[in-house]
Structure formats: C-alpha cells, structure tokens
C-alpha cells in the first residue's frame, strides 16, 4: 500500500484519511480498490490511460419488446406486406443495408453506423419455448436461462469470475463471510434505480443509480451547515476510521469511501446539471434524451478511466400495442442518434477500440399487426452490436415469414450464442463458465476464434 501515490485533487484530508486506513491490520478489498482507483485515475479530464486497456462492454436494453420487423425491414419478403397492411414500411422509404433488407427510415443514426462498419445486426435472435411475458422473458435474457433455474445474471457471473476467480466450492457458509474477496462493485455500473438481474452475480453486486445525484446526501433545505456536519460525521477527515469494533470501522471507512467514490463518479459522469434554482434538473426517464444522456454519461465515465468493465443502460417504451408507427419511429430515432453520438464521442476520446455495445430487447413483436395500429408481444427479433472490433454487417438467417411459430418469428439464433461470442472473443472468458456448455459462439468479432 505504501508505495501508492495518490493523485487527488480533493481536499488534503484524503491522504491523511487513507494513510490512517492503511494502518488497519486487514484492509477490506474495496478500500484497496479505492486506493488503487485513486492512484490509477486522474479524476480530472483526459489524464493517463490504464496500461491494460481492458475491454468494456456496454449493454443497452430496449425494454418493452422492440418490433424487429419494422426496425430491420425484410422488404424482400412478400409476407411482410400481407401481415402488415397498415404498418408496413415501403421499400422506397427504407434505408437499404443489404439485398432485401432496409432500416426503418427513422433510424438514420443506425444507418450511418452500419455504413461506417461499426454495427452488426444478428437476425432472428431468440430462445426455445419463448415466453411472452415482459417480466419472464426479461429474466430469461438476464439469467441466460430459459428454464429460470439460474438465480444470477450472466454478467454477474462473468464479474464473479473476473473479480474473484470462479470457484464453485465458494458457496459454503464460511466463504460468505470473507469480506476480503468481496468483488468491487465499481466493476459494474447500471444507470438505473433497480439493479438489473443480469448484473447480479452469486457474489457480485453492481453499483446502480439512476442519476449520479442519487449518490448524495439529501437535505430538503439545501442547508450548508448540515452538509458540512454530515461530511464530518461520515469520516471525511478519516479520523474515525480506527474507532470501535471491526464492523464499526468497516462502516466508517465505507462512509469515507462512499463520499470519495460518489465524488469520483459524479466528476467522471460530468457532475450534476444544476438548473437556475440550483436544483437538479431531472429529465423524464423516457424523455427524448433519456438514452443519449445515459450513454454520454457512460462515455465520460469510460474517459475518466473508472475500473468499470460493464455498463448497463436502458430505453423503455417499446411496448407498442397501439398507434405504433410514430412512437416506434421516435424511439428508433433516439436509439440511432444516441448510438451514433456515443460512438463518435468514444472515437474522439480515442476509446472506441475498448468498447463493445450489445443492444437487445426481451422479445420481438407479432408478425400480424393488431386492430389498434400496433403489434402484440412476439418472439424472435434482431439484436444489435456496435463497435470497431466487430465483423460488421448482417449475421445469421432472417426467420422465414412463411413458417411462423404460433404467428411469430421462429428464432434462428439462440441469444446465448451471441453472449458466448461476447464472452469468449471480447471479455476473454470461457463461455461455459458463465453459460454452461453447449452454446457455440457466433463469429461476430474480427478476432473471433475460428
């Protein structure tokens, strides 16, 4: 510990505080991580990059069930026009990406990325015996287990293995008390209030917050004296770190770490956007900038070199049972533009090569439109990947519209084959460790193993 030099612009207390901590006989791992983190990252802008440019995965969840058929339109299939009398998009309006396929005209951002070779589309992704409940199907994608026998998420299991080695024998009662190998929650950040199941491991718990401002102590009157008192009570000077029982000491240090960590995340994420009243402006969770705001925040956190391996963001509103046309178009515009801007920002920061994005929805929608100008819950749908490491273009086989399964598209690719590719070729972990055996990775990345 002693050889670590702290790069910090925060008040002097920190050095004092942390050196007091390092005197403790056993140092919980998260503090070690904090110290490492402080040492490794310059919390201001730019700064040096970590030596090992470890790969970063960003998940974009399109919640509600995206209508794949009207996103990547198979204009070459006549059946599409028969089933979609009102909702079908005409070939002349589409943004053509391949023979027989065009993107929804609202998705100009996606078209730019596709043309630039930074986007892949995997056709017909789903799983056997599809479930059409949002909740169940979301859980299935999150756990990567259609039988829901898994209690943890696929990314959580990856982060379990990544942080502490995957030791299946670690389930006994003694292991759960070993605070020393508790994985650092900073390795996974979800920009949402409730932790997505996908990121919950057997041991790993990510940091989830809807807004970096959630990582603040709130007092309704904005009372500055109260705030200062709070900081001191929470060990900002590090002087309480050695006080009381081990568990009390743990909490004193956690309180200090929370303040440092929150400041760092807030600084990395670009700080709070204060309105004229000094009050935080909170965008509507499904407003027109929702996804863009989240992704730009992720871009800033990546640029600030947090040790985070997986980021999770989401966009809701895809459950278009009625009046789909305009709503879906607005969502796709937002999705496309946000992705384009995100990748541009990463490129400007010289970070594009470190990032892979996977965008999925819990299911597609029924082939036959309904009577309300919308579509009901369906099955297979295209999945999207973004980044510079991809083999760009279209992958897999589009489901046959003449051979529907209960009125739905039958899947041609199991989503776990996509996960397997991401795990093996991007995150560099054996897919079986996370998914169990039997899911051959698709060749989605340039450096895919043959």
């Amino acid at each position, binding site marked *: 510990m002693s050889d670590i030099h702290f790069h910090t612009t925060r008040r002097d207390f920190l050095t004092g505080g942390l050196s007091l901590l390092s005197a403790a006989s056993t140092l919980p791992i998260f503090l070690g991580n904090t110290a490492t983190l402080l040492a490794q990252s310059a919390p201001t802008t730019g700064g040096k990059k970590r030596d090992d440019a470890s790969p970063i995965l960003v998940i974009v969840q399109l919640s509600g069930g995206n209508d794949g058929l009207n996103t990547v339109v198979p204009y070459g299939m006549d059946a599409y026009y028969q089933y979609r009398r009102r909702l079908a998009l005409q070939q002349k309006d589409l943004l053509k990406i391949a023979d027989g396929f065009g993107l929804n005209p609202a998705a100009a951002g996606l078209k730019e990325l596709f043309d630039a070779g930074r986007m892949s589309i995997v056709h017909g992704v789903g799983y056997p015996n599809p479930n059409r409940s949002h909740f169940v199907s979301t859980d299935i994608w999150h756990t990567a287990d259609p039988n829901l026998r898994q209690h943890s998420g696929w990314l959580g299991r990856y982060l379990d293995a990544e942080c502490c080695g995957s030791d299946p024998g670690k389930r006994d009662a003694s292991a759960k008390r070993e605070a020393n190998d508790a994985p650092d929650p900073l390795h996974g950040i979800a920009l949402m209030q409730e932790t997505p199941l996908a990121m919950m491991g057997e041991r790993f718990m990510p940091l989830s917050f809807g807004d970096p401002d959630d990582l603040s102590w*709130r007092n309704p009157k904005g009372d500055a004296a109260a705030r200062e008192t709070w900081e001191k009570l929470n060990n900002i000077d590090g002087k309480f770190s050695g006080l009381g029982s081990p568990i009390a000491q743990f909490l004193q240090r*956690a309180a200090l770490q929370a303040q440092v960590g929150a400041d760092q995340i807030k600084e990395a994420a670009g700080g709070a956007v204060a309105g004229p009243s000094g009050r935080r402006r*909170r965008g509507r969770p499904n407003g027109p900038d929702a996804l863009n705001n989240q992704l730009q925040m992720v871009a800033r956190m990546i640029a600030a070199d947090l040790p985070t391996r997986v980021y999770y963001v989401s966009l809701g509103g895809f459950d278009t049972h009625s009046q789909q046309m305009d709503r879906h178009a607005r969502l796709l515009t937002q999705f496309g533009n946000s992705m384009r801007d995100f990748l541009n920002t990463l490129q400007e920061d010289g970070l594009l090569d470190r990032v892979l994005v996977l965008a999925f929805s819990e299911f597609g929608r029924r082939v036959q439109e309904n009577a309300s100008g919308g579509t009901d819950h369906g099955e297979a749908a295209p999945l999207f990947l973004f980044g510079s490491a991809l083999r760009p273009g279209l992958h897999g086989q589009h489901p046959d519209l003449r051979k529907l399964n209960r009125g739905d598209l039958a899947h041609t690719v199991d989503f776990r084959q996509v996960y397997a590719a991401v795990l093996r070729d991007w995150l560099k972990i054996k897919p079986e460790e996370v998914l169990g055996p039997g899911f051959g990775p698709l060749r989605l990345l340039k450096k895919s193993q043959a």
Partner: protein
Amino acid sequence: MQPCLKAPQRGLRSAAFLAVGLLATTLAAPAAAHEMSPLPEAQWTRDKAAHLLRRAGFGGTAAEIDATFALGVEKAVSSLVDFESTEYTPAPPAMSPEVAEPIDRREMRSKDEEERQKARMERNKLERQALIEMRLWWLERMVESPRPLEEKMTLFWHGHFTSGAREVQRSWFLWEQNQMFRNKGFGSFRELVLSVSRDRAMLVYLDNVRNHARSPNENYARELLELFTLGTGNYTEADIRAAARAFTGWSFNESGYLFRERDHDPGPKKFLSRSGNFGGEDVIDIILEQPACSEFLARALLEFFLTPDPPKPLVRRFAAEIRKNRFAIKPTLRTLFSSEAFYDPAYRGALIKGPFELIVSTARQLGVRVNDLIGASRLASEMGQELFQPPNVKGWDGGEKWVNTATLFTRYNTVGGLIFGDENRRGRFLQRMLNDEESNEEGAMSMGGVSAKARTRVNPQPTLNVRDWLADPELATAERIVGHFADNLLAVPLPSEKRALLVSYLEGESGRFTPRGKEAEQRLRTMLHLLCSTPEFQLY
C-alpha cells in the same frame, strides 16, 4: 440515561481497539460471552432492554425502552416471546381471489393461441399485483405489529428456507409459505422442516416436483442438507443422492401437498450411516439426530440475532440448549434472549441493519408511520432486499454486503424520507412515483422489478412531528437533545466528537438553541437526519 458504570468500561474497550486493532475483539470478549445461563435480574439495565428490543424486534421508542426496562429481564423477554397473548389480526393483503385458483391447463388448451396468450398475460398481471400487495402488507405489519418478534422470526425463516417469486411464479404459494412460517416458526424445528419439505412454493423453487422415482432431482435434497439443516462437510454426495430418492413423489396438486406413491422410490437407502427403506420423513429424523444439525441451527440463529461471527464455544453451548429444548424454537429463543451471552457488550451493535430492519426500526424508534409503503418497499429493493425474492437459495448474505457506495446513500436518504415526509416531496418519493406513473402509461418496463399499478397504498408520508420533544423540559439544551437521541436511537455510543458536531449544528451560528418555532422544528429534524445518516446508525 446510560448507567454510569458503563462509561469506564467503554473507554477501556475503545482504547483496546485502537491499540491492537482487530485482535481486540477476541481479547476483549469476557468469559461471560459464551454463557447461556440467565442474566441475573440485578444486571438488567436500560441499555440491555434497548438491545433486547432491537434484536428480538425492531427497536422501540424511548418510552418503550423505559417500559421494557421496568419489566425486568424475565418479563421483558416474555413480553416479546409470548406474543400470542397480544391480539393482532390485521386484514390480509388485497389479493385477487383468482390467484388462489390453479391455472387450468385443460381450459387453456381448449383456447386458441390468441386467447391463451391473453389469459396468460392477464394472470401474470394478477400475480404481480398480488405480490405487491403481499409486500406492502408485510412491511406494514413489521412497522405496526405489537408482536415484533413474530415478524422478525418470519423474516428470518424467509431468508433461511428461501423461495423466490421469480422462480415460483405463484404468489399464492408464497403467501401460503409465509403463513406456514408464522404458524410453525415457533414450534418444533422438525415439524417446520417437514412443512417446508411439503410447502408448494418450496416444491417448485427447489424442483422437488421434478424429483421422480425414475429420474431423481437432487436440488431439494442438496439444499436441505447444505443450507437448511447441516452445512457442508457433514454429508457426502452419496447422502444427497439417497435423500433425493427418499423425497421422490413429494409433490402437490390444486389443494396442496400430495404424496404420489407411484412416483416414490421405496427401495433401500443408505443415508448418513443408517440403512433402511427411508422416506423423506425418515431423512428429516436422521438429520435431526446429527450433532451438526443443532450446531447449524444455533449458528444461523446467532448470526441473525446476535453476531455475524459467533465464537465456536458459544455455538456449541447454544446448540446444547437447542437439543435440551428438543428443537422447540420458542423455548430456544427464550433461552437465547435471557442469556448472559446475549447481553455481552461485545455484541452490542455487532450487526448491520438489513434494509427492512433499517426502515422498520427507524419508523418504530421515531414513532413515525410508514404511509408511503410502495416507496419504502422500492427503496428496500434498491438497498438490496426485496421480500419474496431473496437473491438466491442462500438468502441474503447480509452484514457488510448490505453496504456499498450506492446503498449507503440510499440508506441515508430513505431515513431522510421518513423524517421529512412530504417536505421532501420534490426531492424524492413522490417524484419517483410520478415518474413511474408516466412510464407506466407508456407501457414501459421498470428493470427487473415490478412497477406497481395497484396504488391502493400510496399515501403521503407524514412529516415527523417533533413538537413534543421541543416542549419537553428535560430536553431544554442542545446537549440534552443530542444526548437523548444518541442514547435512544443508536446501538453503540456516539463518539464525543460527533456529539459535539451535532450540538453545534443544533445551536447554529447563534451558539444557542431555542426550542421554539418552525425553525427549531426544522433544525431538530435535520439533526435527527444527521444522526441517522451516520455509520453508527447502521449498527443494530
């Protein structure tokens, strides 16, 4: 408020901690820490009464601590353990009666695909609403019940014999399980394990419905041995296979548990060095004969009620008491709560409050209602605890796992919501609910969780009324106010430096606190929020 003789002892203890760090825990623990003999009445103090209320319940107001202290130790323990004499019959959760009905597969088959899908979604919606109602119902009980140990113990069993809604998919089964924990949770452990083995939620959750004579499924047998009764190292893989065979045929139908004899493997089995044509009940009896079983239960109870890392001698002595009580839970709890070990100062504040313990105990200690049950229930879930959905079969890890950068702020702000109520309206609770309503209209999904549409329990959160305290002549100075709340709200002493910080906040720039007027009320509330936004307040 604190007896004077405590002070030097405490000073000594913290000095020891500073000097030798972690070693101090073991060194400082006096011999009494392992004694299960009853605490002499002469040693009963107000501090100990407060400790009992926190651990065997969810803490109490200053007046409740006084009343418990006045009872003496034996009666105080009895007032918590013998709760049946206190009448409490709240209305059951407002669940649609349909969720009690089985899903009729034949009828489903007769429908066309469209109708079937619609029926399925309709049913899912009812299940989710029922689950929300159950969560709110239980949270409300925890806050209001005059029988707190009943709620606490039910929470313990829920975390011990886990089942989760995501896997079980039938809210009614989880409701039955919760009732079962209430009905059997204080009786014989054998009967409880038997009931759990026949519980429909458990039969689904750990796959015993798929445990067939021809193709045994070991899931339930494995967790029964590993997580429910013995712990690793006390059985072999062969024992798991034998136990799984013994439980084949344990299944259910629309009215409840059902033993399907034709699906049961009646053949000879060798289980934990015994041989016979064992069935599931025999397996449970053999498990209970193992010394490891009483030790496992002792450890689980001690970890929940006393300390995250109970010393071995204490576990052994408590296990002996469990055997002496023939695995009857209620007398076992009485022994524990009456014991000298239970009141050892080393265990004071040794636990970290779980999210529900935090919300419920804050409300009970301050004497504030939790009106916004939906908001509170969501915040608990953000802090890592969702009722009827433990993270996995191990239940909640608890302890230090509860606390990280995100959850610590949520803890502090949740307590702030209870103190400021609607004054904090724009800040938090209502804003979030409005957001939910908006996104719900869009049909958008909240992640992983369930957005409540059944809004029967959305009531404004009241602002904590502090006038009685301000009018109390005993609390005329800032020092006295801070002292009163530090002593009554915290499980551990607040360092004098932190006391001074709170006093100086309360006094403000004028250097003198005047307990009158709106500003004084606001200051007192903020001081309380500060006191509850400390590492010390997380301890229990």
